[in-house]
């Protein structure tokens, strides 16, 4: 490479580098460094090395400086579980709908896609409070169901895990739908016909052709839903009554009322590592399933 070429390459890559640096590496680096420092008494950090933040989570705490509490791992795993459940339900709900929409006439499809993105125009908090009003015992859902005579006693959904799942699925549905739709929409319909033509029952066609062919959309949707779902704590707070602690709450609490920034950073690093691990395993499996011969 000549000097000139090197300069050109440098100039070409500069925007990318700056972008990644500003929006990704610097914040991540800050959290990584903070997670290994001593907590300041009034928040912030003291600049001395301190590994107990991780010890407290994973079990090498000495019991004096810091105490090991398995509860943190439990909370992390529960967050992963909730996120996984959200992904699964979103996928099951979106898949057939995406198929249906992909088959619509262009103008109806545009309308539907517009409707799907409509919730983004309102604030998340406002939408969740709307759900609170819907689900509460004297809320619209119960009023309607009781009015129709479907139930005689109000359904006690608010502040239960059902409400949390409902809320999570609600807010993440569009994130699943859009990549899934993009993938299904570009699926060559003649492949489905070919499969049926060759004698495959609809279920076989779904499993052997349609699912493998839409793996990219499933993976993209899954990732886009899973990552923010792991850190979400607003839904468990607003609709779940904050009775179960989620990773997001735990981290927020460390940066606010508990004033332990390094521990919050360590928790954030661990959850990031876990998410990354899950995603790697997941996408590897998916790739292999999609690419099986």
């Amino acid at each position, binding site marked *: 490479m000549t000097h000139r070429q090197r300069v050109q390459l440098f100039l070409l890559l500069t925007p990318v580098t700056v972008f990644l640096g500003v929006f990704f590496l610097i914040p991540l680096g800050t959290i990584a460094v903070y997670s290994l420092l001593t907590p300041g008494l009034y928040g912030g950090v003291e600049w001395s090395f301190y590994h107990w933040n991780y010890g407290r989570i994973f079990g090498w705490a000495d019991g004096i400086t810091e105490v090991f509490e398995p509860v943190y791992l439990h909370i992390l795993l529960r967050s992963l579980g909730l996120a996984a459940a959200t992904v699964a339900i979103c996928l099951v709900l979106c898949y057939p709908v995406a198929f249906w929409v992909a088959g619509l*006439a262009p103008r109806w499809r545009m309308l539907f896609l517009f409707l799907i993105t409509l919730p983004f125009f309102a604030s998340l908090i406002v939408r969740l409070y709307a759900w609170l009003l819907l689900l509460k015992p004297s809320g619209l859902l119960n009023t309607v169901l009781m009015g129709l005579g479907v139930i005689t006693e109000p359904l006690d959904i608010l502040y239960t895990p059902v409400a949390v799942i409902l809320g999570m699925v609600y807010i993440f549905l569009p994130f699943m739908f859009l990549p899934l739709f993009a993938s299904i929409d570009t699926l*060559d319909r*003649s*492949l489905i*016909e*070919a*499969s*049926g*033509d*060759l*004698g*495959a*029952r*609809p279920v*076989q*066609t779904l499993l*052997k*052709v349609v699912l*493998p*062919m839409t793996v990219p959309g499933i993976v993209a949707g899954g990732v886009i839903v899973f990552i923010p779902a792991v850190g979400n704590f607003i839904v468990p707070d607003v609709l779940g009554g904050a009775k179960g602690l989620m990773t997001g709450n735990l981290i927020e609490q460390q940066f606010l009322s508990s004033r332990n920034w390094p521990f919050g950073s360590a928790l954030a690093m661990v959850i990031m590592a876990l998410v990354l691990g899950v995603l790697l395993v997941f996408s590897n499996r998916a790739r292999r399933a*999609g*690419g*099986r*011969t």
Partner: protein
Amino acid sequence: MPGPLLEIRAARRSFTTPEGRDFAALDGIDLRVEDGEFVTLLGPSGCGKTTLLRAIAGFEQIDDGVIRLDGADIGPLPPHRRPVNTVFQSYALFPHMSVARNVGYALEVRGVARKSREAAVTEALAKVGLAQFGARRPAQLSGGQRQRVALARAIVAQPRLLLLDEPLSALDRNLRQQMQIELKDLQNRLGIAFVFVTHDQEEALTMSDRIVVMRAGRIEQAGPPREIFRAPKSRFVAEFIGETNLLPAVVRATVGGMAELSLEGGQVLHARADSLRPGAKVVAVLRPTDLAPAEQGLAGIVRRVIYLGADLHLRVEPEGGGGEIGVILRDAGRVPAQGERIVLGYDPARVHVMEAGA
């Protein structure tokens, strides 16, 4: 005598266009295909040939009529329960599977054991000359190779009937001609009946046992290639199958199986034809290749000469008037000059006469 392999009676299918108009893609189709027969559905786009093929495969339901295969009504059956396989225009190979798995797919979904599946796949691939390509992905093959994989995939389960939807249209001219021959050979060897859809008359003439010319949802004419070419029943068929001269005429007299026709410009044309009523208005069909300079025949002035290598195309204005006549000379000893008078001879047996207005 056993019935036909495929029998379609009074099949109708209409669609509603986006503008809300009803449009009959199939407007009363009657068709029989015998075992081992190569039948081509030929027609311009929108004539209903693809809809008919898809109705046989089960991708489209007919609104009215019957489709029988080996005597059994298959109309209500979904595609996967019809013993019929399709070669798609786009090939529709599964891109996420190897060539071998593509070919073995029909056996895989039927639960055929791996061993016998592999044997059948090897055999099918050998039949299309791709024995070494089983491990590749469709994306790693050329267009012609994909075409053969699609064929192998469609025949591996030994269907009673193979449907081919313009399978050669994506290939270049040379490859297409080669594949036409290979396809016909393969069909002969397999003994499976083929229903082949195309809009290319040359393809239809080359391969078919029988050609079914379709127009606007109806069958215009069905018969062996030679009959379709030589004795079109209508102006549409005549014009669709190859270049042709359509000469309006009036029957003057018929003598012993020979008719004397008077053309618009007053010249006389002889045709071998029975049962023509004197005074009837007819159209004489005369292929450009059936005309050649001679002592006797139709006289005219050469208006244009187009040299095309092997062929020489002439446009001749008949004496006394009438539309120009196209002539194709295969082996022109002497090239006629523009403006020169020429007399075009013909064999009356090769003049086909059909009723005017057909």
